[in-house]
C-alpha cells in the first residue's frame, strides 16, 4: 500500500488533482461557517459584479454566487460519491456472479448489462428522474442505474481471466464455497482495477448530476452547479459571472477527479508499474 502511495505521489498531475479535490472538500466542510445563511438566501442587490462585497457576484435574484458554488460543491461531491459507490457495489456484484458462475447466469446477467448499455445514459437518467420525481435520492438512483454496466463488464472480465488460475482451482479443490472464493480470493485481486475505474465514475456522475440540474431535473431544494448555470444562462450576455464560476468549478472538479483516477490506475495496476 505504501509503495502504491509512493508511486501515486510521483505522478505530479495526480497530486495536483488531489489537492484541488482537497480544497473542494475543505470548502464543503467549512460552508456552514462561511455562508451560514445558505445558498438560496437573497444576500443583496441582484446582478452585482464580482467584487469585495460579493466575491463572485450575485445572480438575478440577488443570491451570492460564491455561496452557491460552495453549496453546489457539497451537492456534487455527495451525489458523485454516493452514486459512484452504489454503481460500483452493484456492478461488481453482477460482474462477479456472471464471471464466476458463467453459463446461464453469465448469459442472463450480461444480456441485462448490454441492455442497459445500449440505452443512451443521459436519456435513461432523465427518464428515471422524471418517473421518480426529482430529489437527491432519485438523482443518485438514476445516475447509479446508468453507471453500473461498465463496472459489471470490467469485473466479469477480471473474473473470467482469474477463474482458471491455480489458487482458484486449489480453493475449489479444498471445498471452499462459491461466495467465499468470490469475496475472499477473487474480488481482492481486482480491487485495484475497480478503484481506478470507480474514481472515474465519480467524475462522470458529477457531470451527469450537473446536466440533470441544468435541465431542471435536479432537486429544486438543493443548490447545485447545474442549477446555477441554468439560472445564469438567461443573463449570460449581461452578467457573465453567474454561469462562469460554477462552470469553472465543474471543470476543475471533474478534471481533478480524472487526474486522480489516472494516478490511481498507474499506482495500482501492476502492468503499468515499470513506467
Amino acid at each position, binding site marked *: 500500500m505504501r509503495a502504491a502511495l509512493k508511486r501515486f505521489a510521483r505522478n505530479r498531475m495526480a497530486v495536483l488533482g488531489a489537492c484541488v479535490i482537497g480544497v473542494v472538500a475543505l470548502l464543503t466542510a467549512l460552508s456552514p461557517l462561511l455562508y451560514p445563511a445558505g445558498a*438560496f*438566501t*437573497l444576500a443583496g442587490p*441582484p446582478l452585482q459584479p464580482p467584487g469585495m462585497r460579493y466575491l463572485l457576484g450575485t445572480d*438575478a*435574484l*440577488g443570491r451570492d454566487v460564491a455561496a452557491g458554488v460552495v453549496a453546489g460543491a457539497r451537492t456534487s461531491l455527495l451525489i458523485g460519491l454516493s452514486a459512484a459507490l452504489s454503481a460500483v457495489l452493484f456492478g461488481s456484484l453482477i460482474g462477479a456472479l456472471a464471471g464466476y458462475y458463467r453459463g446461464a447466469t453469465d448469459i442472463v446477467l450480461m444480456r441485462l448489462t448490454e441492455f442497459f448499455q445500449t440505452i443512451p445514459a443521459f436519456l435513461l437518467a432523465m427518464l428515471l428522474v*422524471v418517473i421518480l*420525481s*426529482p430529489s437527491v435520492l432519485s438523482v443518485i438512483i438514476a445516475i447509479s442505474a446508468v453507471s453500473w454496466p461498465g463496472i459489471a463488464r470490467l469485473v466479469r472480465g477480471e473474473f473470467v481471466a482469474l477463474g482458471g488460475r491455480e489458487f482458484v482451482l486449489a480453493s475449489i479443490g479444498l471445498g471452499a464455497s462459491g461466495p467465499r472464493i468470490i469475496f475472499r480470493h477473487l474480488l481482492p485481486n481486482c480491487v485495484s482495477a475497480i478503484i481506478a475505474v470507480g474514481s472515474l465514475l465519480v467524475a462522470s456522475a458529477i457531470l451527469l448530476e450537473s446536466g440533470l440540474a441544468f435541465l*431542471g*431535473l435536479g432537486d*429544486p*431544494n438543493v443548490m447545485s452547479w447545474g442549477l446555477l448555470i*441554468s*439560472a445564469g444562462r*438567461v*443573463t449570460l*450576455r*449581461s452578467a457573465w459571472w453567474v454561469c462562469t464560476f460554477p462552470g469553472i468549478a465543474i471543470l476543475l472538479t471533474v478534471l481533478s477527479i480524472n487526474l486522480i483516477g489516472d494516478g490511481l490506475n498507474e499506482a495500482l495496476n501492476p502492468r503499468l508499474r515499470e513506467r
Partner: protein
Amino acid sequence: MSGIPTPHLSRRALLLASAATAIAAPPAAEAQTPRPGGTMVMIVNPEPATLATYAVSAGNIPPITTQIYEGLLTYDWDLKPQPLLAKSWTVSADGKTITFKLQEGVTFHNGAAFTSADVAYSFMEIAKKVNPNGPVILRELEAVETPDAMTAVFKLANPAPYLMMSLSSNNIPIICKSVFEGTVPMQNPSANRPIGTGPFKFAAWERGQFVRLDKNDKYWKPGLPLLNRIIARFIPDAATRSAALETGEAHYAAYSAVNAADIKRMQANPILDSTTRGYGTTAATSVLEFNMRRPHLAKKEVRQAICYAIDRQFIVDNILYGFGKPAVGPLSSVFSTSGWFTADVRRFDVANRLEIANKLLDDAGYPRGANGVRFGLHLEINSFGEQWLRQGEYLKQALAQIGINLTLRSEDTATWLRRCYTDYDFDINEPFYSAGADPVIGVHRHYVSSAIRQGTTFVNNKDYRSPVVDKLMDDATRELDPKKRADLYHAAQKQMVEDSPGAWLAEVQYVTIFNKKLHDHTMGPLGTYEAFSRAWLER
C-alpha cells in the same frame, strides 16, 4: 422581395432629390406614407401543434390564424366593439336578442360567399360544441336565427354582456359552412389549411420551419392588405430568436417570444423598437393557489399571512425583469378602463407586512418551533419555463421569514397538472392565467364553487366555496348596467382578497419587439391576435 416595380425616376428628379437630402434629412411624413408590397417575417413561439383555432385555445395559434379567419367584431383601444364581419348590431332592451347586420360582398378564400348561414354554423355547430371557451362564452346562446342572408339574430336565454366582448377573430372565428358541413371539425381537411375571409390566405406549412400566408387579392376591404406575404417562422432557441430580430432577418416578435433578460438589450438596438400595447385583452397574472383542503391552508389567517409575506415588487423587478406590475387582487388592473377593477381591497403591500403576517400565524395557533419553523408546505413548480423555478426559489425565502418551510417540487407538465387539478395532492400551486377581455371569460372559473371540476385543468382547484362570491359573480354575469356590474365586481374582489383563496402576485407585461421598418402592426388592443391588414414595410 418587392412585388411592386419602383416608380420610374427621371434624372432631373433624382438630382433634385439628392440635392434636397443633402440640405435636409428626408421629412418624417414621407417615411410614414404606407407602401404596399413586401414580405413580413414574424416569429411565433413555440410552433403550434395545429391551426384548428376554432377548436384549440392555445395562444400560439391566433397570431397565424387571425390573419386568415375573421370574427364578427373587433375592438378599439377602449375595448369598445367595432365592426368587422358584422357591419352593425342592435341589442334589445332586455339584453336577450342581438341582431347583427353582416358585411356584404365578402367571400371565403375558396370562393364561397359569406352569409348568415356561415355565422349560425360557426356559433351553433362549431364554437358551442368544440371551442374550449364555448361553454363559458356561449352558455346563454340558444339559437342563431337567419331571417335573410345578411342578418343573424342571436337569441339568448339570459342577458350576457360579456358576449359582445368575446367575438373577435381570435375568440370565435367564422368558418365556411360548406367546408365543414357533415365532417368532424377536428379532422376537417381545412384544420391545418385554414379557409377564412381574412386579408391573408394560407399558402404552406413547412413543419418545424414556417407557415406562409399570401395576400388575399379579393379581400373585402378596398386597398388592403398592404403586405404581399407573411412568413411566420418557428425558431426553438431563444438566443437564435433574438439574433434573428437583431440582424433584421425577422421583423416582429410578440408575446415575449424574446427572453425577458434580452429585452433591454434589444430596446437599445438602433434598428429595433418595442411596444407594450396590443395586450389589452390578455390581462395575464401570475398567482398562487392554496389547497384549502389542507388543514394549515384551511385557515384564513395562514393564507393571509402568506400573502403578506410576499414582496410583489421584488418578483416584478427580479423575476419579470421589470416587465409587469404588482397585482392587488383577482382582477387585473387592465380592467380599470371598464371600471371593474378596484384597488380598494385588503392591501398586502403595507410597510409592516411581516409583523402582521407573523402575528396572524401566532394567533392562528402555530408558534415557531426551536428552529424558527412553524410548519412546512410544498410548492408545486409551474413546469412552463424556468422563471417559475426562480419564483419558487424566491417564495421559499419569503415564507422562511414568517417561519413556513416551503419545499419545492418540480415535475413534468403532465404529472404537475394531474397533481394539482385531478388528484388535488398539492399545498400551493403557482400557475399563470389570462383573464381575457371580460372577467367572465377567464376569472370566474378560478373562484366560483360551480367550477370545482375535478380533472379539468385551470379551474377552481382550491376548494374555495364562498356563497357570497358565487352570488356576486353570478349576478355580474347577467348585469347589463355597467355601473351596477362594476359595483358587483368591486364587492367580489374585496371578499376574495379578504378570503385569500390564492395570492395574486404580478400582472405580466408582454413586450412586442419589432423592426423599425415595420409600421402599423399594432392597431388595437388585440395586438398580434388581429390581422396585419394595414401593416407595411419601409424599403
